[in-house]
Every structure is written in structure tokens, then in C-alpha cells.
């Protein structure tokens, strides 16, 4: 009997899945993680999220093992929860894919022009980049309103701009026959790592081997996905029916240049890596915006996986 119990315990422990909570549905922005799931060389379980899923808080308070968050969420959380620190393991986007989009017929040439022209900008309230832009352009003539998903407002309203992901809303607009102009927030000087895998610092210490295996698996998954996304896109299109396979393919293609670091000579092999300078710069920006009250050590905010 004891042998059976021990055996069961062994099987349970060795097959314990590492849960990765997404902050949205299966989309190409998570393509490499789904590829890692399909590769099965790491006991990964992906949990899809939805609008407003508080993945950072779920992670901080131990409800999940790994979470997809943004770099600024990690910093805010670490300032608020000094006893439950989280660390970035893997950053998908080297260039922040968040954009403001507006109709091409408005002939606006930049985010500055969108803000300085009377009209509406629809964005989720509380987003750090919204604060950044409000701070950068205090004399803005546009009115900020809440974002309610999709692109209906853009289709129906004149003088309208809205938030989006370069890999999603602009493609959706194009599919609906709408001619739009997209402007990257990063071009305004706000470029935090986005779609970042984070972990609790305590778990990083106690489960180091599994985590290292996880990072390797994510990296392999992303390299394979960037080189050939087709099979993974087919799999994700089966889960997320709101985008067709063609949409997945186009989105995967659009995001490639944002995931690869143009300054890194290792090309696709540098995927997921982070630098201390960029974390330092983000901390300073958040302090300037009064989002952070005190400075944090940039080295403590991420795990350097360069050696992998």
C-alpha cells in the first residue's frame, strides 16, 4: 500500500504542470508559448485570460506559477509588495507593439498630431502610456475616453483614434476595408518590454531547475514559431475562433520585427532577452510620471537568461 501511495505521489510530483496565465486569448503574441506547449518538452499548462484579468496580482499572491504581464506592472507590483517580489523571465516584445490608430483620411502624421487635433482618443484608463502621453503633451486638444474593445468606435466616429496592438487592430481594420494609420507608442519614447513572462522571486529560488528548463523551452518555442508559425497558428486558430487562420498568419508576420532586437547580432537567438539599461530607463520614466514613488534596483526586476 505504502509503495502504491509513494508511486502515486512520485507520479503527481513529476507530472506537476507549470501554469502560465495569459492576459488575453490565444493570439500570435503568445505564439512561441503555444509552440513550447506543443513541443511537450516542459510540463506547461496555458490558461487563457480575458479583458482585465489581473495576472500580476494572481502571480504575486501565488494563484499561478507564471504570468504574462508588462514590464511596468512588475515594477508597480514590486514597489507595492516588497515581501512578494516578482521577476521578469522572458520578454517577447523588444519594441512595444502598442499603437494609436486613426483613420488615414484624417491625414495625421504622428501621435503628437493625434493629441494636438480636436477629437476623441479611446484608451483603457490607467494605462501607463496614457499617463506618459498626457504628461508629454499637456496642451492636448483631444479628449480621452474609455476603450471598450474592438474597432466599432473607429469605424463609426469621425475624428476618432484608439488604442491597439500593431499585430491586431490595424489588421482587423484593414480586413473591414478601413484605411488606418498606426503610430507606435515606442516612437514617442515609451518602450517597456511587453508580453513578459514573470515569476515569483521565491519560486525562482526554489524551482530554479524547472524554471531554467522552462526558459529554454520558451526560447526554443519562440525561435521555431518565428521561423515557421504555421502549425502553431493552426492550433491557436482552433482555440480562438475570433480570428481566422489567415489573420493569425498576418499577425505573426507583423509582429516579427517587434520581437527581434535590431541591435542584437544574434538575431532570432536573442529572443526573450532583457537588458538592465532598459529596466533602469523604465524605472526612471515611472518615477517621473509619479507612478513609482521610489527607485528600484533594475537588476532585481529580471532574470538574465543571456547565458542560455
Amino acid at each position, binding site marked *: 500500500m505504502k509503495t502504491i501511495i509513494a508511486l502515486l505521489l512520485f507520479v503527481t510530483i513529476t507530472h506537476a504542470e507549470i501554469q502560465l496565465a495569459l492576459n488575453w486569448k490565444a493570439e500570435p503574441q503568445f505564439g512561441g508559448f503555444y509552440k513550447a506547449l506543443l513541443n511537450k518538452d516542459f510540463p506547461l499548462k496555458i490558461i487563457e485570460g480575458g479583458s482585465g484579468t489581473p495576472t500580476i*496580482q494572481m502571480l504575486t499572491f501565488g494563484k499561478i506559477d507564471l504570468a504574462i504581464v508588462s514590464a511596468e506592472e512588475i515594477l508597480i*507590483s514590486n514597489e507595492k509588495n516588497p515581501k512578494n517580489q516578482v521577476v521578469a523571465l522572458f520578454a517577447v516584445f523588444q519594441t512595444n507593439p502598442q499603437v494609436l490608430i486613426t483613420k488615414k483620411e484624417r491625414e495625421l502624421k504622428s501621435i503628437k498630431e493625434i493629441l494636438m487635433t480636436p477629437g476623441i482618443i479611446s484608451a483603457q484608463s490607467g*494605462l501607463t502610456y496614457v499617463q506618459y502621453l498626457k504628461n508629454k503633451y499637456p496642451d492636448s486638444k483631444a479628449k480621452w475616453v474609455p476603450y471598450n474593445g474592438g474597432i466599432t468606435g473607429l469605424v463609426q466616429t469621425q475624428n476618432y483614434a484608439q488604442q491597439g496592438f500593431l499585430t491586431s487592430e490595424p489588421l482587423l481594420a484593414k480586413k473591414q476595408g478601413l484605411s488606418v494609420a498606426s503610430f507606435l507608442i515606442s516612437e514617442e519614447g515609451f518602450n517597456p518590454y511587453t508580453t513578459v513572462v514573470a515569476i515569483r522571486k521565491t519560486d525562482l529560488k526554489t524551482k530554479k531547475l524547472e524554471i531554467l528548463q522552462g526558459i529554454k523551452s520558451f526560447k526554443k518555442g519562440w525561435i521555431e514559431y518565428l521561423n515557421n508559425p504555421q502549425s502553431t497558428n493552426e492550433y491557436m486558430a482552433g482555440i480562438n475562433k475570433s480570428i481566422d487562420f489567415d489573420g493569425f498568419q498576418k499577425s505573426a508576420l507583423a509582429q516579427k520585427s517587434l520581437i527581434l532586437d535590431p541591435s542584437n547580432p544574434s538575431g532570432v537567438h536573442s529572443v526573450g532577452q532583457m537588458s538592465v539599461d532598459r529596466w533602469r530607463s523604465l524605472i526612471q520614466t515611472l518615477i517621473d510620471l509619479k507612478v513609482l514613488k521610489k527607485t528600484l534596483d533594475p537588476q532585481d526586476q529580471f532574470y538574465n537568461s543571456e547565458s542560455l
Partner: protein
Amino acid sequence: MKKWSPSFFIGFTFILIWELCFYFEILSESLFPPPHLVLKVIFDSPQEWFESFLQTSTGSVLGFSLSLIIGVIAAFLFSLSDFLKKSFLPLAIFFQTVPIIAIAPLLVIYFGFGMPTVVAASFIVSFFPVLASFLLGLENIDQDKLELFKLYRATIWQTLIKLRLPSSFVSLYSGLKVAAGLSIIGAVAGEFVAGGGLGALIDEARTQQRVDRVFAALLLLSILGLTGLGFLKLIFKYIHQIRPFGENSKEFK
């Protein structure tokens, strides 16, 4: 005062336990900010909170008023005509079953950003309790009294005003109490998508992991709800003093 003391005692004990949990680090400050920190958040920027409180109050009061007017008129008409009731009541039930969170983004498209959407959301969720409770009161009357009215050949209007309306007093009050709370929930849901008020502050605070600000907004919403219920009770108590319609109800004694 005696009537209120149990609530004060429970409330005080609850706050004390909460503060102690914070003091002994049983509850995390960032997940369950203690009451004193929640109050501090409000007093740090009172103007901002006051303006938001006022906006949500206006939205919910307008939504509630609309529900009261339309709900009462609809219940009157349904009580007078079975045909109207059978034709339109299923439509009214739609308002009860529709998840406001699902249709709120559509309301913005119909009514635009700002107050009209907030009022519409508030109305949609608070309309049905007024209609249902008032209709129940109008129909649930003493059959002996109804026979007496028929005996004296009272008109439909006379029966409505002198028999059905007084007998629906307590039931209408119950419906309005439910509607008052729902009108605030509807207004906040409207503010999530249309902007402004405490709803927008909650939405913003969620994104910024500011649970203390979420709790501060919830505190103000509770105050708004309690104030609304208090006003409602005062009005009904006043009516009861002039015309004791709800004579059997403990509520007005």
C-alpha cells in the same frame, strides 16, 4: 439610536478586526488595504473624489427616477389591460435578464460617451424591480374590498386610485429599495464604458493595481446607496404619516 446600535456594533467590530489583521500582517495591504488607508486615499484628493461622487450620484438618481416614472406608468397600464400586460411584460423581463456588462459597450455606440450612457445603464438594471413590485402590489388586493368596489359600481380609475394604489404602497417601497441599489450598480457599469464618476476611477485604479483606490470608491458607493435608501425611507414614512397606506408594515412604525 437603539435601532441602529447593532449595525454600528457589527460595523465597528468588522473595521477593528480588519485593522488588526493589517497590524499583525495577516492581510496584505495591497490586496485588503485597511480602512484608515482607504480614508487617507479619499482625504488626499477630496476634490477629485467629490466630483466623481457627484457624477455617479447624478447618473444613478437620473436612472432611478426614469425607472420610477416609466415603471410606475407601465405597471398602471398593465394592471388596467391584460392585453398590454401579455404583450409587453416579456419585453420588460428582457431588462431584468440582460447582462449590463455585455450591452454596456453598445450603449456607448447608441448614446455616446458621458452621462446619457450612464443614465441608460442605470435605468436598464433598475427598471424591472419597480415594474414587477408595483404591478404585484396593484394586482394583489383584498378580494372582498374589490367586490365592494364593484358593488358600488366604482369606475376602473376609482378602483385604481382608491384601492389598488394604496394596497401597493409597501410592495412599491420594496421594489424601489431594490431599484435604488441596482441603479448605482448600473451607473457604475455605465461609467466603466462611458467614462466619468466613481466607475471610471475604479477602472483606472484596477489597471494601476491601486486596490486602495478601488476600496475608496466602493466606500463612497456604499455611502451613496445608504443615503439613497435613507431618503427613500424618509419619503415613504412621510407619506405614511399623512395617509397610512402600509398600516401593517413594521417598516414605517
